[in-house]
């Protein structure tokens, strides 16, 4: 009968199964885990974090315990990577050194992200003269090499964990501020922001509830890409003697100490350097994976 003709051309829609819809999370996972290098990086990073957290359990010796009879011993079954000039076990110091590196890197990035995000948010949201001032200040800050700036600031304030974290954090602010500002400038144009404004939402409310959550993905990528740099910078600073103070184990300082014994005990310098490379590699691979997975152009595909 003519009236019974349906729009869908006779196909019984009810009997068909809807194709399974992938959630955003599933798509993210499938892109993120598609490269084996990224998975390797993830494993390394997780292992490094575990090592840092469980250092007391996992290290065979106390990293500060000096055994002067065993100074500068070669790798043996007793001391897997040998001992340094004061008889301290190298392997234990490397395990404990991961704490210093990770804490400084995380701390510095936290400082940089916090201050950078706030600066970028204010500059991007209010625009005009505020934008100009903040951006020029960021440009000025960006003219200083982070390591040099951290060297000066930490050198003035003295060594120690908090000062290094602050010094490095300040040096890293510019990239986050710029990124946040660019993000805010584009998110600001969205209709929901205009709607919130029209409804009378205060500036703080709009900024915190609407703009910040929508600017996040590139920031996460940026953070993960800079962790590696922060670890390298911390190692460089402790290599120069400005970083974490002895006797606390720090990889850069270990490389510096081992430098004197390069001919007889090369392990003393090579092992901590290798550790640095490995952890930085892990974080960089995660950063790459995150960048590919969070790429907005791939959203909705797959």
């Amino acid at each position, binding site marked *: 009968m003519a009236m019974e003709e349906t729009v869908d051309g006779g196909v019984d829609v009810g009997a068909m199964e809807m194709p399974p819809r992938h959630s955003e999370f599933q798509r993210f996972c499938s892109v993120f885990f598609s490269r084996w290098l990224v998975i390797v990086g993830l494993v390394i990073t997780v292992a490094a974090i575990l090592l840092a957290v469980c250092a007391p359990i996992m290290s065979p010796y106390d990293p500060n315990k000096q055994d002067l009879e065993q100074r500068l011993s070669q790798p043996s079954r007793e001391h897997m990577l040998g001992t340094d000039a004061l008889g301290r076990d190298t392997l234990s110091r490397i395990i404990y050194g991961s704490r210093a590196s990770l804490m400084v890197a995380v701390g510095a990035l936290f400082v940089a992200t916090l201050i950078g995000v706030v600066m970028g948010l204010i500059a991007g949201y209010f625009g005009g003269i505020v934008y100009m001032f903040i951006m020029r200040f960021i440009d*000025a800050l960006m003219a200083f090499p982070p390591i040099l700036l951290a060297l000066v600031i930490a050198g003035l304030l003295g060594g120690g964990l908090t000062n290094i974290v602050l010094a490095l954090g300040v040096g890293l602010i510019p990239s986050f501020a710029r990124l946040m500002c660019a993000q805010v400038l584009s998110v600001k144009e969205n209709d929901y922001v205009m709607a919130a404004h029209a409804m009378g939402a205060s500036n703080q409310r709009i900024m915190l509830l609407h703009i910040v959550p929508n600017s996040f993905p590139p920031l996460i990528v940026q953070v993960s890409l800079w962790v590696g740099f922060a670890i390298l910078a911390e190692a460089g600073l402790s290599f120069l003697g400005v970083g974490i103070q002895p006797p606390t184990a720090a990889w850069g300082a270990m490389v510096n100490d081992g430098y004197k014994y390069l001919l007889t005990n090369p392990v003393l310098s090579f092992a901590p350097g290798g550790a640095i490379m490995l952890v930085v590699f892990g974080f960089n691979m995660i950063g790459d994976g995150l960048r590919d997975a969070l790429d907005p152009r791939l959203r909705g595909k797959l």
Partner: protein
Amino acid sequence: MSGFIIRRLIQTVFVLILVTLIVFIVMRFLPGDPILLYLSEDQVRNFTPQQIAEVRHRFGLDNPIMVQYVDWIHGISHGDLGISMSYRIPVWEEVSRRVPITFYLGSIAFVASIIIGIPMGLVAAVRRGKWSDTVATLLANLGITVPVFWLGILMIYLFGLHLRWLPTFGYTSPIDNFWLSARQAIMPVICLSVFAIASSARQTRSAMLEVIQQDYIRTAWAKGLKEQVIIFRHALKNGLIPVVTLKGISLRNIFGGSVLVETVFNVPGMGRLAVDAMMSRDYAIVQGVILIIAVVVCLANLIVDISYGWLDPRIRYG
């Protein structure tokens, strides 16, 4: 275009003023009384408060902060950066002796990052997924993970101590003894360049990958143009735009790297000067060095911005 240049110039002047402010504030807010650093222990103990006040007045440290700042700026514009305490000579003299050295090594690293890094990234992007891409990407990723000072120590161990091919440290000017200078400079330059080349390659690769996926490239293929023409005539100019802007920033990374490389290889350049001065609390030199480095980076960014405007017409009118 000239309006663009003028605007950029004014902005750079403003940024330079902020740079001097930052340096001044960082250095002035150091813990401890600078007077006590100028005088020796004896003098501090034996001077009466009046004599100390006199010294303070002589160095102008009892003026309000703003006046001190203006005096300092005035001095800088006349080339007076203060007197170094460890070397007992004007800061400018010591620094100007070191600038050419750091400049020599740094510029080789910078040029290397352009002539090695960019083609590397280009090849990786164009031959994506093939063997050359995998190798290039792996090398680039390794390049940004290596700690610069560790690479230096590694090279010293291998080439200096074991194989004895190259001298392990020191620096000679190329004018004095070219062959020795070259042999001494190889390792520091390689260490300095590695990070720059690797990050150049990575940035070029991702920028070119983005460009290659554009529709106009597909149209060029459809038209039947040869691969070389497409890449060099169409893709490269657009792909290089983000890379060019990042080159300005890479300069400050090269300066940062020189701090470590010069320490490892005992090269008497600006980076080493900064470290040594920091250790011996010679704040006048530290102030001078970071000021000069920041100014150089600012000017380099200005040049980069202007060439960016020349490359991408959309920026000029923005």
